[in-house]
């Protein structure tokens, strides 16, 4: 989220969305498309899933716009849909993998494909981020990438602000540890 992106959907656009007009969807996507895409990309295990998930989130928004009562802001409501959609996808995938591979334990080490991706700095960090528990990751992404306030995150994820803060701190701790560990590994490789 760059600071010059407008993050409001005006009343006309909201009305268009409610009445199912193409213009409403277009305006909603123009305002929130990049943000929803980034959330999906940073929460889901595969970058390629983000495109499908982004589309699914907007289709859900269209389906459920009648349920939006305006108690929270539209932005909060949309973020809740986006994060919950990603968490549901992660849970479904986890269940599918558990039933398909009952005998193999989850491995926190990077997979061979992940290891090759680690060559790239950003991708390396993304892979670290993906090793965090989904809810911890969601809090970090909303705060650090989307720069949302504690209150907004708390409303979007429906958790107390105190939980937001503690998850942020634990997430940062784990990421910092991974970065140090990774640096130690690369330093020892350089020395040998």
């Amino acid at each position, binding site marked *: 989220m760059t600071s010059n992106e407008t993050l409001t959907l005006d009343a006309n656009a909201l009305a268009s969305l409610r009445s199912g007009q193409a213009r409403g969807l*277009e305006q909603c*996507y123009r305002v929130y498309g990049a943000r929803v*895409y980034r959330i999906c990309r940073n929460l889901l295990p595969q970058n390629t899933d983000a495109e499908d998930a982004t589309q699914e989130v907007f289709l859900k928004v269209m389906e459920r716009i009648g349920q939006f009562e305006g108690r929270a802001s539209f932005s909060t409501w949309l973020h809740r849909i986006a994060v919950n959609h990603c968490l549901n996808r992660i849970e479904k995938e986890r269940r599918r993998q558990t039933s398909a591979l009952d005998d193999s334990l989850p491995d926190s080490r990077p997979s061979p494909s992940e290891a090759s991706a680690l060559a790239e700095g*950003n991708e390396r960090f993304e892979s670290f981020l993906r090793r965090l528990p989904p809810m911890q990751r969601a809090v970090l992404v909303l705060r650090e990438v989307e720069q949302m306030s504690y209150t907004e995150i708390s409303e979007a994820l429906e958790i107390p602000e105190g939980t937001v803060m503690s998850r942020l*701190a634990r997430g*940062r*701790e784990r990421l*910092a540890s991974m970065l140090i560990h990774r640096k130690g590994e690369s330093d020892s490789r350089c020395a040998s």
Partner: protein
Amino acid sequence: MKNDKTCGEVREWLANSREDSSLRPPERLAEHLSACDNCHAYRDALDALPQLFGALRRNQPPADLFNRLQAKANEPFQEEPRPFKNLEPAKPAAGPRVPLFLRAAAGLLGFFVVTASLPERTGKQQEQGVSSGTAELFTQLDRDLLHSPRLDSTPERELLAHLNRLNEKK
């Protein structure tokens, strides 16, 4: 300098105080931090996080994603109903609008016409209730089935005859 307990405290303090740069660690932790290489590296790693997250902010969706979304929104019903078959505002149904009270009146009139046309039960039948209805059914069955040549010497025929006899005795 390495003291696992103090290292833990320092790391927790560092992670918790990221949001407020004006906070300073307690003296004991600050001393440890200045002397412990591991904690120092940990603080550097925490300091690097905003920049690393900042790089993720540059990720943008593919240019054609909206077109694909629009096509999906216009798709006819597949596995589950799509929100809009066609992204057009809903149109009212053709034909004149009938007020609600007229529709309710028509419904009531229909109800009275149907109930009035039903055959009335005699007082005796009403007293007999369910058993009277059963007798009628057996009489009907007897007429239709008992004399059918296909039912000769079948247990069903014997049963029907027996039930009929019982009914006549009543």
